[in-house]
């Protein structure tokens, strides 16, 4: 009989980074679907949470990172709370998002990482979030305003914005935080702590 030799030479780095960050062996997952069954946003996902875990184990990096799921996850922590094997699935989603952002590629739901970026930029600048400038930057940078002008949705947003303004819910001036230099240093240090 002919001898067959099989060489398994697969890059496991991706899986290892996720496992290391989450601090729990993902192989403990026995695909019980509990995470997916309780997920409030599963209806909008292209990969269900239990499938995300399995795909990581199968080293399907691109499939996971290019999914809609990682951005649609609302971080409600239901999956993490209920997993019988104590896998922190919400944290798995966090690591995947972090790796995707670091890749520099366009995300499947591009508005979500742009939202995160403009939100964090206001903290970096002034130490706290200024809701009004965050909203303005988001609408401009994500193309959200352009889209809404096309669809006419901007009218609803403007009406709601005006109502909130008249009720004193939109603070005009940005907040003052004396520690903003310290906060900026935290952001600089964070740059050195990338996932990959």
């Amino acid at each position, binding site marked *: 009989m002919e001898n067959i030799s099989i060489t398994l030479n697969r890059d496991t780095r991706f899986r290892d980074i996720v496992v290391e960050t989450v601090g729990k062996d993902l192989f403990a997952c026995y695909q019980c679907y509990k995470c997916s069954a309780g997920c409030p946003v599963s209806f909008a996902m292209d990969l269900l949470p239990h499938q995300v875990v399995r795909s990581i184990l199968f080293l399907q990096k691109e499939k996971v990172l290019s999914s809609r799921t990682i951005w*649609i996850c609302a971080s409600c922590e239901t999956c993490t709370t209920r997993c019988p094997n104590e896998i922190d699935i919400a944290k798995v989603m*966090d690591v995947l998002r972090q790796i995707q952002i670091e890749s520099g590629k366009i995300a499947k739901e591009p508005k979500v990482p742009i939202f995160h970026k403009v939100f*964090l930029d206001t903290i970096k600048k002034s130490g*706290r979030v200024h809701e009004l400038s965050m909203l303005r930057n988001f609408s401009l940078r994500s193309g959200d305003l352009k889209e809404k002008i096309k669809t006419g949705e901007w009218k609803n947003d403007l009406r709601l914005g005006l109502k909130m303004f008249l*009720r004193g*819910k939109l*603070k005009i001036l940005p907040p003052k935080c004396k*520690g903003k230099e310290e906060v900026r240093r935290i*952001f600089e240090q964070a740059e050195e702590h990338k996932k990959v």
Partner: protein
Amino acid sequence: MKVSFFPGCSLEGTAREYGESIEAVGEILGIELEELPDWNCCGASCAHCTNEFLSIALPARNLHLAEKFKQDLVTPCAACFSRLKAAEKALTSESRIDVAIPFKGEINILHLLEYLSRKDFLERMEKLIKRPLENLKVVSYYGCLIVRPPKTTDAEHWEDPKSLDILISKLGGESIFWPYKTECCGGSLVLTNVDIIHRLTGRLLAMAREVEADCIVTACPLCQSNLDTRQEEIGAKKGIKYDLPIFYFTELMGLAFGHKRVSKWFRRHIVDPRPLLKSRNLL
């Protein structure tokens, strides 16, 4: 009674009436809420989605500041609470990431709801009630991050929490059971995927109506905002008119304590709660 107070960014903006009612209720209960000097944003959902170091270091700076005062740190925001607690756990256990910010873990970090649900406060409240919330049917909405995950929040009951229900009953209101106490409202997806918010928040509104609640009470600025600001859009999609007032629990406390400036808080809501309260002779 003194505590350190971490207000969070939304209290000066979208959740202004939450901040105002907290101040009023604190005064009535004799609690000195000392704002943590020079606090910074906890990073909310955006930091933990982007960079692990940032998600620990931003709240860690606040914990470091708070520890100097050697008293409980209280925050009214569910997201701030969640991030402060996550940082507490990371800093007091063997963590892979060293953020180089010292914190020994010698202070308690509490959500305001948990703090005010202490037995001695509940007893004190009973004597302070001037206008019991009679005939007001309330569903308690806890949302996600006050209770989940329990390993972070240290919550005792995460599937069926009761603190808000108990509080409402103490204030004389009728706390109605409903199955959506800890269902997600969609959180910050409101800016990027409003359709998801319409579905999740819409389910909450529909269920509140199903159980014949007059209003929903919350303990989170983002939950309150999603529930309060989207009713018109959700109603238009479904062909139903929603006008369900969404209260912060401290507003209902202020109302029951007979605070004079409650109308100033209620005026800030998108769904005006005053007609409901007038119809129940509470205003």
